């Protein structure tokens, strides 16, 4: 690989000779001289022609178009935004821009590994061959089927919006287990909200491309909400100078002066967690002053007026509930800490604006919210008539990909599927939608309904990313055998018994289904940009291999020869379906795609569509008229959730059927723990599956991370009252755990709160990543959502003690 000095000088001579004819070669000559010096440290990467390969980023669900600069088509030097891609229009986020650092990360797992010592001992991993690794997994899986206990196999995956997730689902159903879980996401609670309000388990989508007034209830719009690429691009447009066109107004409601709050036209500071109370207060004002869309409510909404449940019992509707004492202006004022006239003004302003929309979802919109609160913010949009055609809110349009084959399912699979999933015991209320990862883990740790023999982890890092102290570790102690498919030696992989490493993102084929938060239908294929560097294997191919070798109905359900063929089949189905087109116009035309527009189809068959998609283009279709998408019992938008009855949730109190303020106070005695700990998100700290790459860590301020210590933000007044100064070392203690951190005085902090960034405190990896700061997740309090039962972790009670 080393490029000898002589050969290099020849190459340089060629290059310089060519450009010497141009008038300004000195700098290049200068650079060439340096590259050719004989300093002992001089790195000598292989040289060659530089090309660009377009693809789609899969480091998050944002769906950005990228192009990777390559030397000799096999050495990635940088990742850029694709200027022709409509989501990010050539821009890129810092994580995407640093993406190649994951490819060349020292902590990548270079081949299959097996733990030979105790779990968690990094020195115990011994290399094994792929045949041995897959063979062992296959043998174990087959034995569990032979023993008629396929339900004792579980998996946790990180992505919910790609075909790999569907492949996992197909595998689990054919195999005979219900225990497939995904890492928590705001999509979980939004799907529950969609089900209750519209009869559709789909997340809401916002037409921010056409909004003129954006009222954000704690939504971290610029930190990376939904699709960070889309949001950053939009933010630039909202702040176009007068010469460049009309500006859009952004109002941020939040307890902390977050990046979005600082960049908003107005920041409305409220008590932590009280955003939904403000929305209800505004709804109260809008109803009282008749500022809502009355004809829309009349024609399209059920449960605004009083209603009768299926058992004939009269029930209170949302309208009169808003007039109840608990939803009075005074109540809202007290809960939010805002003066009543400000709430009235904001309600009037929101009502008066033409294209106003309310958005929500903190922590980058990536963690589940209280479902009642999702429904409160939704209801505020309904009052505004935002679900009308041309309105600002709809359901994310679905992508008509090819269906997977019907699963015949043998006797063993039927038996396995007849077992309840391990997150449900006894006669608790059935979960509204999906699986409950936190319930699963705490049951496995304490009183599992049955043992979990095999736990597989794919593109997820629950040991780092889940809230609560050792939530995952405690469960793993009771798991028979743990399999990781991670490309990285992360906190979770470290606990595995065997590792079957996946290719890294830029090396593997993947797809992106849907653009989070956007009403358009979106589909993209992430073609690999360079061949795999290490002895890794695509997890999709491993799953297919396992199914093939098990044969029978499992093999039949996953008939594809490779993961690539599987994706091509799905794309063939997309090509055969009605509607949609590949986006080949100028990115600025993206905003012209509206409800009712019919994209001009520009492919004839699956192969043609595949070719365009694997060249980095995306498929799209117009948003749907939300009123046509409603599948609720009443056929209307339901603000009284009668679906709860049909789901076996009959409840007594009327208000439990309505959007309401249902803040769950975190555990702990406020006297012992006087402060509230709240996590916050920075766009320069990656808090998900991918750790912070060194390029990003360089940009982290020294009042966020200094050496091995991270800082918490305290209001200067709060700090003073506790005798704390900038930089003081403290122990931050919550009922769940404690961490040593330092104090940073931040006037944008709510005086009763202490704030800690997400994304620090990783363990292991390499010296550039591990051991930097404290992990806020492990300090947070996990509570069950009153509706969905899903774990929410928005805060914890906290006390601070000065050290030394």
């Amino acid at each position, binding site marked *: 690989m080393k490029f000898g000095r002589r050969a290099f000088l020849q190459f340089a001579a060629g290059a310089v000779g060519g450009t010497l004819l141009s008038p300004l070669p000195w700098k290049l000559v200068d650079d060439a001289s340096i590259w050719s010096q004989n300093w002992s440290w001089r790195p000598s*990467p292989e040289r060659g022609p530089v090309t660009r390969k377009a693809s789609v980023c899969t480091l998050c669900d944002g769906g950005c178009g990228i192009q990777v600069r390559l030397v000799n088509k096999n050495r990635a030097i940088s990742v850029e935004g694709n200027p022709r891609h409509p989501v*990010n229009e050539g*821009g890129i986020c810092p994580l995407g821009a640093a993406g190649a650092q994951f490819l060349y*990360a020292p902590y990548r797992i270079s081949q299959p590994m097996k733990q030979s010592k105790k779990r968690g001992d990094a020195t115990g991993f011994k290399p094994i061959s792929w045949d041995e690794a897959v063979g062992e997994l296959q043998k174990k899986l087959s034995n569990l089927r032979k023993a008629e206990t396929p339900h004792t196999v579980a998996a946790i995956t990180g992505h919910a919006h790609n075909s790999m997730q569907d492949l996992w689902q197909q595998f689990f159903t054919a195999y005979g287990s219900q225990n497939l879980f995904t890492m928590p996401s705001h999509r979980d609670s939004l799907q529950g909200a969609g089900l209750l309000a519209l009869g559709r388990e789909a997340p809401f989508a916002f037409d921010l491309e056409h909004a003129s007034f954006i009222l954000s209830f704690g939504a971290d719009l610029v930190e990376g909400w939904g699709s960070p690429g889309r949001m*950053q691009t939009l933010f630039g447009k909202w702040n176009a100078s007068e010469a460049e066109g009309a500006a859009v107004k952004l109002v941020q409601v939040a307890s902390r002066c977050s990046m979005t709050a600082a960049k908003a036209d107005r920041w409305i500071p409220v008590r932590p967690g009280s955003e939904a109370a403000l929305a209800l207060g505004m709804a109260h004002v809008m109803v009282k002053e008749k500022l809502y869309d009355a004809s829309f409510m009349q024609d399209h909404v059920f449960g605004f007026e009083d209603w009768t449940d299926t058992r004939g019992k009269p029930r209170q509707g949302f309208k009169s509930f808003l007039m109840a004492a608990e939803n009075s202006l005074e109540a809202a004022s007290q809960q939010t800490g805002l003066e009543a006239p400000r709430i009235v003004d904001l309600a009037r302003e929101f009502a008066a604006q033409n294209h106003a929309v309310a958005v929500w979802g903190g922590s980058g919109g990536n963690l589940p919210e209280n479902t009642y609160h999702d429904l409160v913010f939704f209801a505020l949009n309904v009052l505004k008539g935002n679900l009308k055609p041309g309105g600002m809110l709809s359901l994310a349009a679905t992508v008509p990909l090819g269906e997977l084959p019907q699963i015949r399912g043998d006797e063993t699979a039927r038996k396995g599927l007849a077992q309840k999933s391990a997150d449900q015991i006894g006669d608790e209320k059935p979960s509204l939608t999906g699986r409950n990862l936190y319930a699963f883990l705490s049951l496995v740790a304490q009183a599992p309904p049955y043992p979990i023999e095999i736990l597989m982890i794919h593109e997820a890092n629950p040991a780092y990313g889940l809230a609560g102290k050792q939530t995952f570790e405690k469960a793993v102690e009771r798991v028979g055998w743990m399999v990781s498919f991670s490309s990285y030696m992360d906190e979770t992989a470290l606990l595995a018994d065997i590792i079957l490493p996946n290719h890294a993102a830029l090396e593997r084929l993947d797809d992106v289904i849907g653009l989070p938060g956007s009403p358009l239908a979106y589909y993209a294929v992430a073609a690999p940009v360079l061949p795999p560097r290490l002895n890794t294997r695509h997890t999709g191919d491993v799953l297919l291999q396992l199914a093939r070798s098990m044969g029978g109905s499992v093999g039949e359900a996953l008939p594809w020869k490779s993961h690539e063929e599987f994706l091509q089949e799905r794309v063939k189905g997309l090509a055969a379906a009605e509607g949609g087109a590949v986006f080949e116009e100028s990115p600025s035309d993206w905003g012209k795609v509206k409800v009712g527009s019919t994209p001009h189809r520009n492919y004839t068959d699956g192969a043609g569509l595949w070719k365009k998609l694997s060249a980095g283009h995306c498929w799209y279709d117009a948003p749907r008229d939300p009123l046509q998408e409603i599948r609720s019992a009443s056929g209307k938008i339901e603000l009284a959730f009668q679906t709860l009855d049909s789901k076996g949730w009959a409840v007594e109190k009327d208000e439990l059927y309505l959007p309401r303020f249902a803040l769950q106070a975190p555990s702990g005695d406020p006297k012992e723990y006087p402060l509230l700990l709240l996590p916050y998100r920075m766009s320069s700290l990656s808090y998900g599956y991918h750790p912070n790459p060194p390029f990003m860590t360089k940009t982290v301020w*020294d009042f966020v991370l200094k050496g091995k210590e991270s800082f918490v933000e305290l209001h200067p007044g709060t700090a003073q009252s506790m005798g704390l100064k900038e930089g003081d070392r403290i122990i931050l203690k919550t009922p769940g755990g404690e961490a040593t951190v330092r104090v940073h005085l931040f*006037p944008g902090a709510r005086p009763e709160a202490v704030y800690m960034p997400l994304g620090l405190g990783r363990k292991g990896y390499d010296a550039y990543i591990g051991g930097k700061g404290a992990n806020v997740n492990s300090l947070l309090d996990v509570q069950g959502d009153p509706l969905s039962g899903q774990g929410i972790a928005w805060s914890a009670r906290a006390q601070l003690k000065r050290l030394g």
Partner: protein
Amino acid sequence: MSEQGHKQGAVRFGMVIDLDKCTGCMACSVACQAENNISFREDESNKLRSISWMEVFYLDNDQDYANYQYTYLPRPCMHCDAPHHAPCTFVCPVNATTRDEENGIVGHIYPRCIGCRYCIVACPYHARDFNWWDPAWPEPMEAMLNPEVSPRMRGVVEKCTFCHHRLLKARAKAFLEEQDLYEVTYMPACGEACPTKAISFGNLNDAESQVAKLAKDPRAFRLLSKLNTEPKVYYLSKHEWVRKQGDKHFQNSNGNKRG
């Protein structure tokens, strides 16, 4: 700028950064590191030792809670256009750092640099960093080095070059296509990456260019303009408190340098 009396060509490359658009996402800084082979170390939190050509600063308005505001200020090299010399080029005893009067870019010729660090002291913008150590990349990461930019050795100073190699590439291309070399413009890596399109770049001497127009925007200001360094990096902000701080050193209410 002609009244400054120094010889100059028709081209004056400059940058305009719209702080109203900038979200402090740091993509510019990351893209600059990847483009320019900027080395990194295990611990980058000692900002006096950390090498960063595009550093994002944090400014606040010194108010409390409900009235608190802050903004981000990405700071590349200002490529000062002051007559005859930029502060750094003036003090360099060995002509290692010079301004190319043909296009206004202040360059740094590493093999000439003797590491005396006078230029670091002279630069009022903290735009220059010193290589205290040999750069070392964790083994496989060397593969990411961009062949168009040389890495720097221990003992020399480095700073933002306005991605000068991109200009050379653009001119080489124009030359081969027999086009006017002085019409050529290009986009540095930071501006290309910026997801909010906060960064514009071009020829300030071309009245029709976006940068020339934006530099005349009523929101425009330059850093420490009272020093008469004539930066070719302009900032835009609608907030008066931000524009005012353009003439102060970056200090926050606690008195510690942020960034």
